């Protein structure tokens, strides 16, 4: 990889100052960034290591019942935090279905939000990629695109956002706390990631030097705790990205859905919140009829971006199943294989 400067700031302010320089990148656990540097897809001239910054590794319950998660909290630590996992079981389930046990033990929640697409053409410096090299074209459009986006893509880019965690976060209206050269600000996660349009190189709203310091989950999401699931379809049971995933959460009272949350993963350049489907579910009786209708609504705008039409049908089925699982109730204990379609098979081993 290219030579680079390594800076280990002592405070958030120092970090922001150091990262505001052109060519700088924040380094957390590096589980994605270092891989990209090794293959030459990213070549930052300066790494600003934020792992050791004070105060970013805490999971807090605020007075209003909301959660505030420091950006340097490790994925595994958040998923195994009993209070958090009880309040947001589908977030914990999504976390535990991501990457591998080894990666979850080091990867941070801030890094998870900031991870890059796994589009093979993005990762391959010899390929044209508008995201990596604006204006160079998109080799995925006519290439091996079986797993690419079916929602929100453009002729410039058909990559997907790979995160599981973010799918559940966006379903529950997570907010991103940001510190930058101009001060602090908050952005709803749903508005944080950007669709490609004609500027796929711009993946999120962060400006130069801005640092995610925390994620917040509002307290009113707690009413979904009894009926929520994350379901992830993938081509092996661990260490594989979602072909399609979905977070479904239902607030059910007296046999009627009072409110619903639905988000999809693996289908777009951002975690995809399905508002129209949520609206359809509101007031409906939980069941196959309502869920299939919601699934159709969630994918109403979907279009294949290549040899991936199956993902649209698959996504409908995943949404339908996730809603059925949510309606059946949050499992008392985390399934042995979190988010797996086989999570409830008796006798299946519990090591992912």
């Amino acid at each position, binding site marked *: 990889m290219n030579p680079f400067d390594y800076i280990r700031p002592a405070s958030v302010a120092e970090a922001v100052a150091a990262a505001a320089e052109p060519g700088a990148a924040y380094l957390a656990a590096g589980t994605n960034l270092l891989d990209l540097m090794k293959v030459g897809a990213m070549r930052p001239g300066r790494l600003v290591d934020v792992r050791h910054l004070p105060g970013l590794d805490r999971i807090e319950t605020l007075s209003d019942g909301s959660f505030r998660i420091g950006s340097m909290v490790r994925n595994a630590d958040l998923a195994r935090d009993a209070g958090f996992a009880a309040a947001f079981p589908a977030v914990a389930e999504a976390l535990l279905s991501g990457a591998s046990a080894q990666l979850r033990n080091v990867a941070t929640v801030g890094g998870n939000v900031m991870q890059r697409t796994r589009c*093979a053409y993005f990762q391959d410096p010899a390929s044209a990629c508008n995201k990596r090299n604006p204006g160079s074209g998109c080799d995925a459009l006519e290439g091996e695109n079986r797993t690419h986006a079916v929602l929100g893509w453009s002729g410039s880019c058909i990559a997907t956002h790979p995160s599981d965690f973010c799918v559940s976060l966006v379903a529950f209206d997570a907010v991103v706390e940001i510190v930058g050269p101009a001060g602090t600000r908050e952005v709803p996660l749903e508005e944080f990631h950007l669709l490609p349009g004609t500027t796929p190189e711009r993946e999120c709203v962060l400006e130069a030097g801005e640092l995610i310091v925390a994620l917040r989950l509002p307290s009113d999401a707690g009413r979904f705790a009894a009926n929520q699931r994350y379901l992830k379809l993938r081509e092996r049971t661990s260490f594989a990205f979602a072909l399609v995933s979905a977070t479904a959460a239902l607030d059910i009272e007296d046999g009627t859905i009072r409110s619903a949350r639905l988000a999809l993963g693996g289908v777009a350049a951002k975690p995809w919140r399905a508002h129209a489907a949520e609206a359809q579910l509101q007031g409906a009786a939980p069941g196959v009829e309502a869920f299939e209708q919601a699934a159709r609504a969630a994918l109403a705008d979907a279009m294949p971006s290549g040899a991936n039409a199956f993902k649209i049908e698959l996504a409908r089925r995943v949404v339908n199943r996730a809603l059925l699982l949510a309606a059946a109730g949050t499992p008392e204990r985390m399934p042995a294989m979190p988010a797996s379609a086989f999570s409830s098979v008796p006798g299946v081993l519990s090591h992912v």
Partner: protein
Amino acid sequence: MSDAITLPAPHVRLGSSSGQPVTRRDGHLKVTGAATYAADNHPAGMLYAVIAVSTIARGRVTSLDVEAAKAHPGVVEVITPANRPPLSLDPDEKVGLFGFRIDALQNDRVRYARQPIALVVAETLEAATEGARLLSPTYEVEPARVTFEDGEAYDPPAVGVGAPPNFAKGDIAAGHAAATHRVDTTYETPAQYHNAMEPHAMVAEWNGDHLTIDTPNQAIVMSRALFAGYFGIPPENVLLRSPFLGGGFGSKAIMNGPYILAILAARMMQRPVKMVLPRDQMFGPVGHRGATQQHLRLGMDAEGHLTALEHNAVATTSTFDDFIEPAANASHNLYASPAISTRHGGVRVDIGTPGPMRAPGEASGSAALECAIDEAALACGIDPLEFRLRNYSETDPASGKPFSAKALRECYAEGAKAFGWAGRPLSPRQMKDVQGRLVGWGMGSAMFPCPMFPATARATLRSDGTALVETAGADMGQGAWTALAQIAADGLGLDVERIEFRSGTSDLPDGGVAGGSGHTASAGTALHNAGTDAIARLAEIATADRKSPLFGAGNAGVEARDGRLYHRGDETRSESYADILARSGNASVEGNGTGARDPKDAEERAMFSHGAVFAEVKVDPDLGQVMVTRLVGAFAAGRIINPKLARSQLYGGMIWGVSFALHEEAVHDRRSGRIMNADLAGYHIPVHADIPDMQALLIHEDDPYVNVLGVKGVGEIGVTGTVGAIANAIWHATGVRVRRFPITLDKLILDPGMPA
């Protein structure tokens, strides 16, 4: 004196060591990190070499920015076709039986993506890596051809390692004409890459015209000569050290360009050089399993007996060398049919040359054959196990020769019993679990030949009653060190703990090739014979020594056990090895052995390991997600030296079968020819959670002909049978017959046979 009749000495006497589930002797070293793999060596003054590889699949390199690379701090040399010193062998020539053409910067041609186009040598790995990037090659690009359709078809003169491409027995047309039921089906298997956990690695150090190389290798002494050949030095000037391998699977038995370039760099720089291939470079110059298209036509009479078995396979190879996956040969030796016809075709594409990859031909061929047999059973309305029994071959279908031993019937019976096969519904989509998932059962027959490679060994009995045994064997992780030591101990009549076993370097007697599932048989037989030779010499000393209690035992003979020689006629007369040696004045006595099969048996008998694999899968009816929930394999492979290690090998093979059936595929971009999933995140192999509860049953089999030990092999057979069993179980669960591996969920959910 006893008046009992003394029986003639048995041909082989195996003591208490063989057959025991001894824990692998290198286990502690490996789990504690103390085992020294090739890349763990850091000789003083060592430089790092990194290969620069092409990003195009066909064309010419038109420029390399050598100046930029050399200007990078730490870079000391850049080797390109312009300054590459000559080699003593032409890289474009094939040398020896396992010879392959290699890419060693002989010119500016590019013949596949990730072909070496330069080598950068630097003081650090980071500098060499960045130097390679700074070369910024430009190319004259020609269109890449990586698919069957785009490639150039040809008739290969040979398949696999020198096997004939075509075979015919009986009248295949008449067989088809006579058929009441017919199956005509085509299966495709993708390009697969070995991806041993340990990538290819080389640490090379020259001392004058002597070369020491630390490198993982499956054929240590044979490879030594080839390494020497490229550099024009005698084989004995090369010391190849390969004590541990982190997997080989065939790819580490074959020479490759990067190794030669690293050694060349060490000679140019007069300093030791280390080169370790990064994972993505494992997808190019170091072999793979070529893709296949296999067309099978089967004819059956009204009772379900095969009347014709026709298997035509086309496989991809490179544009500049030939290795055709001998897939159709899987139909030669398993099922009885009066007419068998197999043919192979080749298609030249812009890829690195394929090579032997665990069960080369058998794996891909068995996958297609066992699925076709399942289709044939269905066409006849017969249970797949019953169909296989009706077509059971009592003699080798291809040659008509008797089998040296064949306990396949017992494998079927024991496997089916352990699995609970009885009562399986004939039609698909008949079984569901309590969650509503589709359940299917499938099976496949497993088979693998029993080659032996020339091997030699030395056994030295020492005055302290211990022994040194030596052979240049390769422990790829399969446990060769342990099983071979067990055999050696028995040959010497010693406890295995009294054996010092030396292996893994080229200055030892040639242990042959750790490949073809023949290492235990080959090196083991050599070790056994070396041991009995040493004992014979010791017995000569003892029986000629008037002071020995064994004096004059010549006619009755002696027997070696527990470190003593016993008079066969009188068990009260015995003496320890140490005492015999001490009195004789010899510090030690040495025996030598070779491992070879009786040529008469080899000529007269067909020799194979056999097995039967049963699989249960569950499939989500809406989502198409597949889980293999049970795998039972029953294998008959002659004498099992170490059941614990043998089972582990069989498990490994069966897991490989899961991988073949459900996961593995190298995905080429058709335009650039590059493999787009050249890493272990993108190139899927199973994780633990994909692997079900498995059983590997070891079925008793006495094979008096295969070799003096009765040992066959277990390294590869587990792959065969398993792939078909899983594919057949998926069909049985869903009614969907996926004929293109791997069976991924998109192929299931979009099939009209799988209604939502």
